[in-house]
């Protein structure tokens, strides 16, 4: 028997005899540092509104989507998904997650989150409008606003981390994921300047490919999967992704993407082929997450598992198509809508009800209402509603993909179904917050 130190809550450190244990420190890791529920909610709801905008654009111009990945519509939609939807969800999630991981809230969280939320929203509208109407001023304004939004978030996150003892693994993963925003944004600004005729690029197509690789595989790939590494074992009671894979994944993706970036300047096949390594790593991680989810002990498959599983399936399908053909639009639909929308929706449906329940519980306990019966998590976003949304959402993806393979008898149908899915998402998020506020009135 050996004597070990217990990490203690409020009583100081106790010495107790136990066998083969490990000292842990719980100080500085607490949800009480998390911001008010309104902070992540406003980002999630903004993202949902952007998905409605994507649907409306598809209804009125959807037939142009399949012309080329360079069509004004395709470029506008790409940035509505990435900056309008994904950036809102991922920054909103970080405002909630970072204080829990680091133990200190982001500085001036209400003000900073509002500025970031607004800058990204206006930036996404300007940039997408600039692509759609081929307007250089709007493109420049969008690039500036998005850069301001991301910069303020990154500075605030860095200030929160500075001087704190942080868990290395998750901080490194998230840090590298958010680092990938920098080359994405810099290359994006370069492309906007090139479109405005201010700079000349020798190989614009390669710069675009590197820009979207940093965005989709670096930023989206690393941040989304790092969140899943933490979230899946906790919320679905699965085993962990192998530690080695977790540790090498994010640094390897960033190193390989750096090599790929060099292909802009040096025309060597070895640099260009490094992107294959990134795709392989993403698929490896995706399969790993799928395997631990399949192996979990509980056999109930709820809507959140369906969303996350479908998102991972879309990623694997996109990679398979990328290997055998060059169907850019299909790959784009699978990555942006199939992965970029589907996985975050699954995460929102799993995490938002928990946050509503937890914040309610914390407030009730703070008011010493110890015997209060709170509603269950399913009360905030009912499973039936989430499952219906899943059916509409996957139908929209299938209809969009079908548009590339065959001539649609009803060209507006994919857009109509997608808009229906987006309205479902917006209404489910709004209802969760309304139920939370109502329960707050009842119990406090």
């Amino acid at each position, binding site marked *: 028997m050996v004597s*070990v130190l*217990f*990490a*203690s*809550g*409020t*009583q100081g450190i*106790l*010495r*107790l*005899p*136990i*066998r*083969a*244990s*490990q*000292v*842990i420190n*719980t100080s500085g*890791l*607490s*949800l*009480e540092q998390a911001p008010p529920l309104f902070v992540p909610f406003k980002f999630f709801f903004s993202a949902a509104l952007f998905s409605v905008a994507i649907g409306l654009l598809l209804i009125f111009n959807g037939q142009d989507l399949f012309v080329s990945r360079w069509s004004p519509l395709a470029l506008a939609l790409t940035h509505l998904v990435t900056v309008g939807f994904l950036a809102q969800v991922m920054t909103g999630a970080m405002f909630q997650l970072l204080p*829990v991981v680091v133990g200190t809230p982001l500085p001036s969280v209400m003000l900073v989150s509002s500025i970031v939320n607004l800058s990204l929203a206006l930036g996404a509208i300007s940039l997408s409008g600039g692509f759609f109407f081929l307007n250089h001023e709007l493109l420049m304004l969008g690039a500036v606003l998005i850069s301001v939004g991301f910069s303020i978030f990154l500075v605030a996150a860095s200030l929160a981390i500075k001087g704190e003892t942080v868990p290395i693994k998750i901080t490194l993963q998230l840090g590298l994921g958010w680092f990938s925003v920098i080359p994405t944004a810099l290359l994006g600004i370069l492309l906007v300047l090139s479109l405005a005729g201010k700079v000349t690029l020798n190989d614009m197509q390669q710069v675009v490919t590197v820009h979207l690789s940093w965005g989709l595989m670096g930023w989206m790939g690393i941040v989304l999967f790092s969140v899943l590494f933490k979230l899946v*074992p*906790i*919320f*679905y*009671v699965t085993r962990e992704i192998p530690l080695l894979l977790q540790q090498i994944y994010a640094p390897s993706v960033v190193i390989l993407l750096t090599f790929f970036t060099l292909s802009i300047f040096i025309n060597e096949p070895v640099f260009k082929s490094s992107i294959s390594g990134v795709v392989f790593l993403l698929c490896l991680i995706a399969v790993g997450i799928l395997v631990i989810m399949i192996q979990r*002990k*509980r056999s109930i498959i709820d809507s959140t598992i369906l969303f996350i599983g479908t998102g991972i399936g879309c990623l694997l399908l996109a990679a398979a198509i990328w290997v055998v053909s060059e169907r850019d639009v299909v790959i784009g639909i699978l990555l942006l809508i199939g992965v970029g929308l589907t996985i975050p929706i699954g995460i929102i449906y799993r995490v938002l009800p*928990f946050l509503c*329940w*937890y914040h309610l*519980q*914390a407030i009730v*306990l*703070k008011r010493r209402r*110890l*015997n209060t019966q709170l509603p269950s*998590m399913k009360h905030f976003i009912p499973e039936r509603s989430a499952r219906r949304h899943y059916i509409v959402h996957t139908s929209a993806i299938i209809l969009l993909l079908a548009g590339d393979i065959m001539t649609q008898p009803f060209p507006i149908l994919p857009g109509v179904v997608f808009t229906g899915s987006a309205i479902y998402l917006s209404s489910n998020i709004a209802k969760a917050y309304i139920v939370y506020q109502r329960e707050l009135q009842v119990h406090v």
Partner: protein
Amino acid sequence: MERKLDVRELEPPVPLERILDMLDTLSKEDWLCVRHNREPFPLYSLLKQMDFSWDSRWSNGECFIRIWHTGHPPVTDSG
């Protein structure tokens, strides 16, 4: 006296609900020992508000959390 609770197989927020339910009926002389598969960080800020104290340790890949009324620590062999 030690009361035990095993929440390793339960999905959030059920572990938190079960722990809070048991704390509702925990007398000042007793303490609760929770067996968990991870560190339940969200629980700790709730415990502070409820005037409970806790400690935690990892053993063989499992987390053991002891919770007691503040001022009434568990009675152990080592004192």
